[in-house]
């Protein structure tokens, strides 16, 4: 079998040979003048181009934060829209530097894809959406239903587990893109649309009559969504990881887009350390001393980004819930910057 694989891998292998494992990602990005960031093909709240073609969303802000930390310019990002099916190949082959695309952190993805998750940008869980007219109140009433799902996702696997675990039958129709999936649901091909709950609220906005559809209360899985980077470049891994932590820390310390300059002048030793007037923590990452200032100026702290994109200040209006800071009853927690 090994011999066969040797002979046959020729053509495909060429794609992988360009990106040798190396610690050169940051240098390559600086040479190129932009961070290459894999995002969804359009999911409100996470990554979606606005009417002027600017990408906005929570996942987008992570990439903009990284660009701000490196270039002091959040616009130096090249966004690459990817389907769920193609995302890992794009990361593995080096087409994107970071995959910030509502991707669920699982053990097998961490180990077998040659990539690492850097943190959790959004704690999500899988839910179901049905038409109100079906008068379904619980996911346990969905026996014999037809379910539309995007293929190549953890959603597809949880769905199988859930129906099997509850001894219910169902028919799955799996589509390559999120758009095809929601279109099929709207056309009546299936009774149920399932994805991460944040995604349900976001996709519901695309339907002709959002009020006719209801999201069921059950959350059937843990879906911690976060950015991914390739194996083999620990410096780059650290930069992506700490860009998110910088946003969370900023919220914790009350640093906002508006008051960041003012806070930078403060005498508080922690603020001085985080905002770079004391020590060289940013330089240890391969960035500049004022990296946190740059990030917060560009995209705000985590709470600001959350509110603007998916929270109370957005069309989605999702409550903070698990994504509240750890000291306010949620799970968002950043290791200390020191």
């Amino acid at each position, binding site marked *: 079998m090994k011999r066969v694989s040797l002979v046959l891998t020729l053509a495909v292998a060429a794609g*992988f040979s360009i990106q040798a494992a190396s610690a050169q990602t940051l240098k390559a990005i600086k040479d190129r003048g932009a961070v290459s960031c894999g995002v969804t093909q359009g999911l409100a709240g996470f990554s979606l181009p606005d009417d002027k073609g600017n990408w906005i969303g929570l996942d987008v802000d992570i990439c903009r934060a990284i660009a701000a930390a490196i270039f002091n310019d959040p616009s130096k990002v090249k966004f690459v829209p990817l389907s769920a099916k193609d*995302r*890992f190949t794009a990361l593995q082959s080096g087409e994107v530097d970071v995959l910030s695309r509502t991707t669920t952190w699982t053990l097998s993805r961490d180990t077998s894809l040659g990539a690492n998750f850097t943190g959790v940008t959004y704690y999500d869980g899988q839910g179901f959406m049905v038409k109100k007219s079906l008068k379904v109140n619980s996911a346990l009433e969905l026996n014999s239903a037809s379910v539309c799902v995007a*293929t190549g996702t953890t959603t597809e696997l949880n769905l*199988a587990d859930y129906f099997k675990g509850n001894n219910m039958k169902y028919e799955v129709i*799996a589509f390559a893109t999120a758009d095809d999936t929601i279109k099929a649901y709207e056309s009546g091909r299936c009774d149920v649309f399932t994805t991460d709950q944040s995604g349900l609220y976001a996709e519901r906005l695309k339907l002709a009559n959002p009020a006719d559809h209801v999201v069921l209360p059950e959350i059937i899985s843990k879906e911690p969504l976060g950015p991914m980077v390739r194996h083999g470049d620990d410096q780059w891994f650290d930069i992506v990881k700490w860009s998110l932590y910088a946003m969370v820390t900023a919220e914790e310390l009350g640093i906002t887009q508006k008051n960041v300059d003012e806070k930078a002048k403060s005498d508080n030793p922690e603020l001085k350390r985080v905002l770079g007037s004391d020590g060289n923590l940013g330089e240890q990452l391969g960035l500049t001393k004022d990296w946190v200032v740059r990030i917060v100026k560009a995209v705000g702290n985590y709470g600001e980004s959350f509110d603007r994109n998916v929270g109370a200040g957005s069309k989605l209006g999702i409550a903070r819930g698990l994504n509240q800071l750890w000291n306010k009853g949620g799970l968002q927690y950043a290791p200390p910057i020191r």
Partner: protein
Amino acid sequence: MAIEPRQPPSQFIPKLQRAVGGSAGWSGFVVQIVFVAVLAWLAYEIVANARANLQAQHIAAGFGFLANTAGFDINQSLISYTGSDTYGRVFVIGLLNTLLVSVIGIFFATIIGFLVALGRLSPNWLLSRISGGYVELIRNLPVLFQILFWYLAVLAALPNPRQSISLFGSFFLSNRGFVIPKPIATAGLEPFAFAILVAIVASLLLRRYARRQLFESGRLITIWRYVAGLLIGLPLVTWLVFGAPVTFEIPELKGFNFSGGSRVIPEFVALTVALSIYTAAFIAEIVRAGIQSVHKGQMEAGASLGLSRGSTLRLIVVPQALRVILPPLTNQYLNLTKNSSLAVAIGYPDLFSVFAGTTLSQTGQAIEIIVITMGVYLLISLVTSAIMNFYGWRIGRSLSA
């Protein structure tokens, strides 16, 4: 003393020289060796590089994943499948689904194609214009567009299962597909199937006898009455003796969908219909060209023998046209098979969708899966070509005999 005729000098060395080096002789041979060596070195470099990089980045490699549990479900499988089966079985399911669409698509595309071609050549003005319009309309629209048209515009417009269109209370047409009663074998099935088999064999023997009589003694025997009697009568007798061969499980609406019965999913229908109709337009042109390539004197000769237009076509023109038709027809068959991978757009679980799509992104083993998928499409295409070439060889032989 007999004089030995002088043997011609051995041609072995010059022959070898030409065989390995072409007209350039030995130097050509060296060039070829160098060329092959460079190719082999390139191949080795690519493979070694890929392996080294995969290892360095700790990306899983090898074919062990085929034995792992897939964990996702598939909505059409010809053999039994559940989420706890392996990726290897997913591969087989996908392959069978691809073959199913291809075989049924080729069958209908051929029939429609021949009919449209004959319509286009027909002296009937209306029929030939309609056929011409069909060809020009269908072959000039992108096939993906046609698949989406059938899926989203035609089939999705059907009513939901609760308002489905019902035929005789046992066939139901809805946007979930076409639900039909499912035959369930009973004790009477075996004698019934045996009776049909006997009837078919007897019919074939009868046909052979009739042909021999025709060619040897010019006696024309009309056999279709006997054949019909055999094919209908024998099974009917066993039915009466042993009871009905199958009973039917009537589908009924339960919850969201029909339970019981067999179901043809709309994705399959949309894909098969679109591919058949699209490919038929090309086949129609190929068949028309083939028929027109046969000299019209053949048609006139048939007419002067008193044969009808249909018989002339069937017995004289089409067999000669087939020699011209077959190679491009094979191309169309291959195109249809490869186009079936567009299934991914409408969620039909073909090989490309469930294996090169779902399995790839669940396991992340892009190289192995793409290589397997390429190999399989190549194999399907080569087998199709081989079958068609064999058929072409038989026709060529019977025409020259």
